[in-house]
């Protein structure tokens, strides 16, 4: 299913700079309806309180990590179908395998380009 440009997207990252970068790229790609959260716990709260079509999340975050948030999303009947893209500096093979097992929709290794984000979005919403 192609991506709806009006869908609400949640960007979860503890670093303000990364949230802004992802938000900027999404805007350039035509997605302007973006919300932010600083960690997995805040992300989950926002996801449960509203309707989101897509989540972009970091891995390493205080309070609740991205992988724990992903597991919580997949375990929640209301949220489990939301595509989750992980954008992380955790570039070990074991991390990627762990994310796949947890149900990640795709995985981007930092640093990344807008083209990579576009390509991953294309694959998730084909």
């Amino acid at each position, binding site marked *: 299913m192609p991506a709806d440009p009006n869908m609400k997207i949640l960007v979860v990252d503890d670093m303000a700079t990364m949230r*802004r970068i992802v938000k*900027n790229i999404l805007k*350039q790609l035509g997605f302007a309806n973006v919300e932010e959260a600083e960690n997995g716990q805040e992300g989950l709260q926002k996801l449960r309180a509203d309707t989101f079509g897509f989540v972009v999340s970091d891995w390493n975050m205080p309070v609740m990590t991205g992988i724990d948030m992903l597991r919580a999303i997949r375990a929640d009947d209301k949220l489990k179908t939301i595509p989750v893209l992980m954008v992380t500096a955790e570039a070990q093979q074991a991390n990627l395998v762990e994310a796949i097992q947890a149900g990640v929709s795709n995985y981007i290794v930092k640093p990344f380009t807008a083209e990579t984000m576009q390509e991953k979005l294309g694959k998730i919403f084909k």
Partner: protein
Amino acid sequence: MQQNGQQLYEELGELARFVEKAMRTISEISAPIVSGSAGLPMASSHLVDLNKMTEEGTLEVMRLTETIQDNRGRVVKELAAVAETLKTVDCTTLSMRVQSIAADLAHDDKYLTEIMTALSFQDLVAQRVKKLVAILDDVRDKLVELVVVFGIPHDADGIAATGKTGEMLKQLEESKTTSMKQNVADDILAQYGFK
């Protein structure tokens, strides 16, 4: 029996000499250990400051880049409207030139986005700095443990880092308060006749 006693006496003597030597060595290195341990919290604090400084700088570059992106977006829209108007009044050549300018401007958007993504270096640097701070804190805890276990005399509040470490930390600390703001520099320059 007497031979065993003699052997035990010699071994105890050797052990006593070993303990004495070890205590002497610990005593010699105790000052650098205490001093080094005292400088570590300050070093951690400077690393945390470093993270803040790079984050602030990066966010400012992002703000300016986004402003340029927005301005260009508006100009491209305006140019498209102008090109359309020119087409309706049969100024096809002019309309095509305006469209070409709009396309050139739109092409630069790619570079502006690349500036934004290149700034992700700050996130990677910050993550490494956080790990370094955690390592420094861990090393400090272990040094403090060593100081306590071996009863090395120290004054937790009064001690300061010495040697090269102490000097560098002093310079870093001073730079926080003695760095001159431009307006102060301008005032001084003005007093010396610089206009």
